[in-house]
């Protein structure tokens, strides 16, 4: 005879305010098999768990029901309590009386209490039919795939590789480095971005545990945690990296000029190019969209001048495969296109630029040699207006969130402007100054005191041209009046948005993303690094706008998660998976079609004992099966059984109500 213990949780006030917990306990005690029932304020706490452990021993219980929050929250906690008391952890049932009762029936305590009683009765009935189950071990491929070679991807790859775990780092552009490589100096210490980044880039290239695949994209991912298979398309670079020495003759001689992405289009690069002089790998690629030879079959100057004969116009895209156990996604950010701000004349005035364009101008290796200039006439600006929250925090223009880093980099820009043009003045229109971070508030103060930057709290309503100047009209909210600033240059701190291919990437990885294209973490507070899909992790601005310290921290957290995943030779997996009873299987393969994880294949077995004729039956890959139960529902011959949710268990539940 079964001996069930019932433990009802108050969850502080979460359950107790809307469900009469003692009544639920009394109701539970009326069930014949319940030998012990009790309530407690926080069942998940250590004293709560101790009550369970003690009762198991004292009352010789054979299954346990915990009536508390969702099993997604604490099922693991309570299972652990069971096994600590020497009981099989799968003899636990959780009755979710919080999400399913107290939270949703706050207006009717009586009904909520009745429903909680029903949920407990069902759980008790089900637990009586629970069987002892044991965790499954699945082999793990100890190699990580990092998608994106910005600072997030670089940090994650280095940290994982330092633990002697092989990493494949895939970068879409010809060089790693990402956005950070475009920055001049970094807040709040003004250390040079290149100086702190390029050594890490070199480390990536030379690390024995890192395989760097630049100019490539992930195009397919199959499998499951610990056992993924990725397809990577290596875009044709038309340059043989093995023989190329990176001497630079080809791009000096190439006659085709293309707007330079690295410099935000301020100057031109060639059709054969490395993105920047410190590129890693420092090998050029040919931009097939602009190369005259590839477009028209003429030119070929680069090939003529290349002493090593490294140019190969016949090169094709190549698809390679890697077996991996975990993925870190670090695809970075883009700047929002401010064209919808028609009142600012974005697109009509050359002297309105975005913050990355300004960053490139003031950068020592930038197109202007570190001096900000007006794009219209090349003159050095004396009055520069910075406008924050362009796009960000502006529902009318479609983006509601705060881009987080603009307050800080605009303060930095004010300082850099002052360093480069001593007799200049910065005017900064802001909504709020959000300088939460170590040394950040001090940095903003420094910008105000040291450079005399004028901070004006208010929105800009219009920008118009008057002679050579741009007239910036806005509100000075603190003085409650309209102001107009005669500006030489206007810099817009436009919103940070995820890279445009994020939704497509999320779909091919099978993870979720929000309406802006940011990839979604599994839990906004407690699992900010994981995605809902096991074995896929997020680092950097692909998840939300972030500054460099936060990005690096998250990347290292990803590395810790990957290392943890790979700590053993096998991975433990819940035993709640489907099994096929070959006796009953008719081989109809309905289950094969409905399985969302491609976990079911078919196999041939002898028709009868010792028979030569074969018949087809379904076979479930226990590593892939996630226990969703779809196959059980479609199986016509009731041949499939889902452990933990067997027919007797379900029928017991139904009978109980």
């Amino acid at each position, binding site marked *: 005879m079964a001996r069930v213990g019932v433990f009802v949780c108050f969850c502080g006030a979460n359950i107790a305010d809307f469900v009469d917990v003692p009544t639920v306990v009394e109701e539970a005690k009326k069930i014949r098999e319940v030998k012990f029932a009790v309530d407690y304020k926080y069942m998940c706490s250590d004293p709560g768990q101790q009550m369970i452990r003690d009762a198991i021993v004292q009352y010789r219980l054979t299954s346990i029901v915990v009536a508390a929050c969702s099993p997604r929250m604490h099922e693991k906690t309570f299972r652990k309590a069971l096994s600590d008391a020497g009981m099989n952890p799968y003899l636990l049932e959780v009755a979710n009386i919080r999400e399913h009762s107290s939270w949703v029936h706050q207006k009717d305590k009586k009904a909520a209490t009745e429903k909680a009683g029903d949920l407990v009765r069902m759980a008790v009935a089900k637990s009586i039919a629970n069987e002892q189950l044991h965790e499954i071990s699945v082999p793990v491929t100890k190699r990580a795939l990092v998608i994106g070679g910005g600072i997030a991807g670089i940090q994650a790859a280095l940290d994982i590789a330092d633990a002697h775990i092989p990493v494949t780092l895939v970068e879409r552009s010809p060089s790693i480095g990402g956005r950070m490589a475009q920055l001049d100096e970094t807040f709040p210490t003004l250390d040079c971005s290149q100086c702190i980044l390029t050594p890490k880039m070199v480390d990536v290239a030379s690390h024995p545990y890192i395989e760097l695949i630049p100019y490539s994209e992930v195009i397919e991912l199959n499998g499951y945690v610990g056992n993924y298979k990725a397809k990577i398309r290596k875009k044709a670079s038309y340059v043989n990296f093995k023989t190329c020495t990176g001497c630079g003759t080809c791009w000096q001689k190439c*006659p085709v000029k293309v707007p330079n992405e690295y410099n935000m289009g301020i100057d031109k690069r060639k059709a054969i190019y490395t993105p920047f002089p410190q590129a890693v790998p420092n090998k050029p690629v040919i931009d097939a969209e602009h190369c005259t030879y590839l477009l028209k079959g*003429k030119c070929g100057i680069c090939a003529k001048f290349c002493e090593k004969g490294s140019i190969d116009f016949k090169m094709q895209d190549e698809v390679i495969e890697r077996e991996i156990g975990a993925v870190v996604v670090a695809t970075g950010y883009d700047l929002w296109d401010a064209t919808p701000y028609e009142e600012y004349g974005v697109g009509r005035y050359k002297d309105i630029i975005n913050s990355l364009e300004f960053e490139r101008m003031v950068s020592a290796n930038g197109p202007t040699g570190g001096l900000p200039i007006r794009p219209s006439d090349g003159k050095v600006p004396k009055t520069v207006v910075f406008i924050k929250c362009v796009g960000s925090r502006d529902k009318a223009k479609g983006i509601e969130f705060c881009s987080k880093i603009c307050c800080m980099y605009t303060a930095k820009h004010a300082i850099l402007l002052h360093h480069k043009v001593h007799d200049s003045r910065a005017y900064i229109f802001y909504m709020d100054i959000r300088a939460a971070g170590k040394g950040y508030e001090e940095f903003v103060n420094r910008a105000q005191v040291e450079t005399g930057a004028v901070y004006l709290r208010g929105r800009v309503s219009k920008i118009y*041209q*008057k002679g050579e100047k741009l007239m910036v009209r806005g509100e000075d909210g603190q003085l409650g009046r309209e102001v107009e600033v005669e500006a030489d240059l206007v810099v817009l701190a436009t919103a940070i948005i995820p890279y445009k291919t994020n939704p497509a990437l999320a779909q091919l990885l099978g993870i979720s993303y929000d309406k802006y294209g940011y990839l979604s973490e599994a839990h906004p507070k407690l699992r900010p690094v994981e995605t809902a899909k096991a074995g896929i992790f997020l680092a950097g601005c692909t998840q939300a706008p972030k500054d460099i310290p936060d990005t690096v921290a998250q990347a290292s957290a990803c590395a810790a998660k990957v290392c943890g995943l790979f700590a053993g030779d096998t991975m433990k997996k819940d035993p709640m998976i489907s099994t096929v009873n070959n006796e009953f299987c008719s081989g109809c393969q309905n289950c094969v079609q409905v399985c969302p994880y491609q976990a079911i294949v078919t196999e041939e077995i002898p028709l009868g004992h010792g028979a030569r004729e074969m018949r087809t039956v379904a076979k479930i890959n226990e590593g892939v099966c996630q226990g969703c139960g779809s196959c059980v529902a479609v199986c016509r011959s009731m041949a499939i059984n889902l452990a933990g949710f067997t027919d007797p268990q379900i029928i017991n539940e139904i009978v109980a109500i």
Partner: protein
Amino acid sequence: MKKVTYFPGCSAHGTSEEFDLTVKMVMKTLDVEMEEIPDWNCCGATSAHTMNESLAYALPLRNLVLAEKLSNDTMTIPCASCYQRLKATKVHMDEDPELAKKINTAVVGEGSYEGRVAVKSMLQYCYEDIGLEAIREKVTSPVSGMKLACYYGCLLTRPKAITRFDSPEYPMSMDKIVEALGAKAMPFDFKTECCGASFSISDTDVVLQLSGKILEMAKESGAHAIVVACPLCQSNLDMRQHDIEKKYKVKYDLPVFYLTQLMAMAFGFPKEKMMFGKHIIPVDSALAHIGEVIEEPKKPVKGKKAVQAESEVE
């Protein structure tokens, strides 16, 4: 021949008679027959919609219901305020069933609203329904040589949620029409700035300041004149111009044309028929530019380097 329902509004029968007159001339030339709504009433602009929301919808609604009794599927309105009120009512009636139910009772004697007729400003009708090509075809004496600043004011393209036509901040439809007439539309940043019309009587100083800024920027753009498609814009910029000049001790001398006056001229009507005598700022100085050749700034010649590079490719 096209047919369109016409809602002239009160100003067309009074202060902006010349607008009404030239609209009719232009439409006739463009083979559009205009059918005035019989027994139309006040659109409720300014007073009604600041005092009483129900009345603000009920007044235009009666006009919309009357318009549906005619067979045309589009209505055009020269006055920007009238347009704004009728269009706003239409949008709210079409998209807010609660409001529609309530307001519909106000016009019960006239029938009920179906939402069959599109409401368009004169500018929008010319731009969308007639089209630049048809306008260009009718031009017999282009007004080339004139540099014009097109002023749209606040209501022709705003708010976007209501008007759903052109850009609310930097519209170009009127610019394109005047270019079709042969004139040069100057880049003009103040084309949708407030002229202060609402304070026309209560606080004239505000009008002088705001309209003054518009005139200043129009002058700065190099325009010979301003073009409008709204009676209130015209009267503020034209009538107040002397006061503005006096107050700020400047001289603008910028005539303010109705778009349709220029269209009619380009279509070959003699200038005597435009009622230019009603304008405060004489128009002759601007009209004198017709026929002048405007020198375009030279396009930069291809640099030596670029030429070299190309030859290298060959």
